[in-house]
């Protein structure tokens, strides 16, 4: 499948005019956010995820632009993590989970019967909430992914490049043999990012990657994420509003809805728009209430 070019119905709405006068809430770290959005990389259409009979998230349609950061925000339990794991078929590992609707990556439905979920995960990497390096050396952590694919010779190169890309090289280049667990929390999380990068994905999913980190480590990761947009599409779940405002180009706001006919609680997408727009003139009052801290 060829890469799609921008078309009217694929390009997410743009809000060019508001870009240059962003309000004080925004801390600019790194490059300017794009006014015009890139072509779509991942498209979700009417995605519903269930655990057994419980609907965790319902009817989500969403477009993720290439090489930009899309933030998923919303109160706890609204299905952000669930939806994120749907994007690289990590939900397959939960026996009760089932996915309906379509998730297209470069136009291919990743839930098609003949799609190999392992191949999906190699293209769409993941960084978890809690830094989870393997109890192995720093080098072996980064080399893990390439080794799975039988890479042997260029391993040193890949490890160095990945660690550089994750802004960790200078801190660890003299102790690559030490355990990944000997690093600080922030370094461990960057190691996990390096480990994900080493597999050479083009999308990286991050589930609250900074929630276990201190503010300085958080800032470093945020800077890193901004830099990474030159090569990667990033989808980040965060419940830190400022973080979404600081790093993301697009923001999708989810909430828990109980108004469906079955009277069940399930997560729904309220709206998705440019981060600017969501934070300054959200069209749904629930979004505004959440962002201004009136609930959630």
């Amino acid at each position, binding site marked *: 499948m060829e890469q799609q070019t921008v078309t009217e119905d694929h390009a997410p709405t743009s809000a060019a005019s508001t870009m240059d006068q962003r309000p004080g809430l925004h801390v600019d770290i790194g490059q300017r956010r794009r006014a015009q959005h890139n072509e779509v990389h991942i498209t979700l259409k009417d995605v519903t995820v269930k655990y057994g009979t419980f609907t965790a998230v319902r009817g989500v349609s969403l477009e993720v632009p290439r090489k930009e950061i899309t933030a998923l925000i919303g109160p706890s339990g609204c299905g952000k993590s669930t939806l994120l794991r749907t994007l690289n078929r990590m939900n397959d590992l939960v026996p009760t989970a089932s996915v309906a609707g379509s998730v297209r990556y470069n136009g291919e439905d990743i839930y098609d019967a003949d799609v190999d979920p*392992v191949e999906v995960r190699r293209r769409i990497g*993941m960084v*978890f909430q809690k830094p*989870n390096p*393997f*109890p192995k050396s720093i080098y072996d952590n980064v080399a893990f992914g390439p080794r799975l694919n039988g890479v042997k010779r260029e391993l040193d190169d890949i490890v160095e490049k990945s660690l550089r890309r994750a802004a960790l090289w200078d801190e660890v280049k003299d102790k690559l043999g030490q355990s990944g667990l000997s690093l600080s929390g922030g370094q461990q999380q960057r190691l996990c990012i390096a480990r994900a990068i080493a*597999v050479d994905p083009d999308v990286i999913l991050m589930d609250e990657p900074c929630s276990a980190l201190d503010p300085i480590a958080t800032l470093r990761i945020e800077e890193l994420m901004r830099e990474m947009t030159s090569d990667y599409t990033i989808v980040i779940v965060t419940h830190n509003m400022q973080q979404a405002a600081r790093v993301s180009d697009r923001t999708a706001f989810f909430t828990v809805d109980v108004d469906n006919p079955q009277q069940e609680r399930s997560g729904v997408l309220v709206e998705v728009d440019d981060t600017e727009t969501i934070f300054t003139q959200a069209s749904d009052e629930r979004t505004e209430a959440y962002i201004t801290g009136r609930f959630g």
Partner: protein
Amino acid sequence: MTIDTQPRAVLDPEPQSLRETTRNARRRERFSKGMTFLLFGTVMAAIVPLVTLLTIVVVNGWPAINGEFFTQVEPLSYRDRGGGYLHGIVGTLYMTGIATLISAPLGLGAAVYLNERPGRYANIVRFFTDVMTGVPSVFVGLAVYALIVSGSGGFGLGFGTLAGAIALSIIMLPIVVRSSEEMLRLVPADLKAASYGLGARQWQTTFRVTLPAAAPGLTTGAILAVARGAGETAPLIMTALGARQVVTQLTGAPQSDVGLLMLGGFRQPFDAGIERAWAGGFTLIAIVLILSIVARAIARRSQL
């Protein structure tokens, strides 16, 4: 019931003291002392037999331990002094070693299965493993005799090292399975998720993440199983049978064993034989204790 709308302070002007009444305090103290004493008693009840056993074995066994004991075989008559259990020690180590080679990979494989493929079949396997743990070891020996040693089972392997080792491995297998399963279960789901997230397949995750992370615990479990196997005598009576010289063949000749030699020595009313049996007991206990201590040391190094 009425709802009290009065402010509490008005109804209850006198705040209660935090101090206990003397009577209460004394009762509490007496109760605490009594319980401590009781629990200490149960600890003693558990420790006393072990300590007594160790003392008796050391007191009786140590004097008979000498260089000869480990380098010579037993004299033909239980009346004669001197000689040793070399053939028994060789047999015990030989059979336990082979039993470990059989039961460790099999047990580990079963544990991986139980851990990676939970469900009805796993439950059935787990149930039979538990049953196997409870089977009397003498019966294991009998079963191996009927099926493998004697011609009637179709194998007709005859008494010997391999037959003994098979019997021991059947004793050790469920121990390896259950301890390994516990250890594999302790591997954090986080780590496995990380591996899958990097595009590892299930077998790759098992071999590169789960097993290495659980390795110290798995080793500990295996060693405890070895210690159990090394100390077994009953299943060897009808499989190894016993020998009076060092046997190196796998099959075709009955094999000796420390436990079997002790059994022979204690059953005869001659001091020399009984002394050697005590020394044999000392040797066995030492092997088992050392293995257990090594197992604990490895377990403590575990990162999980």
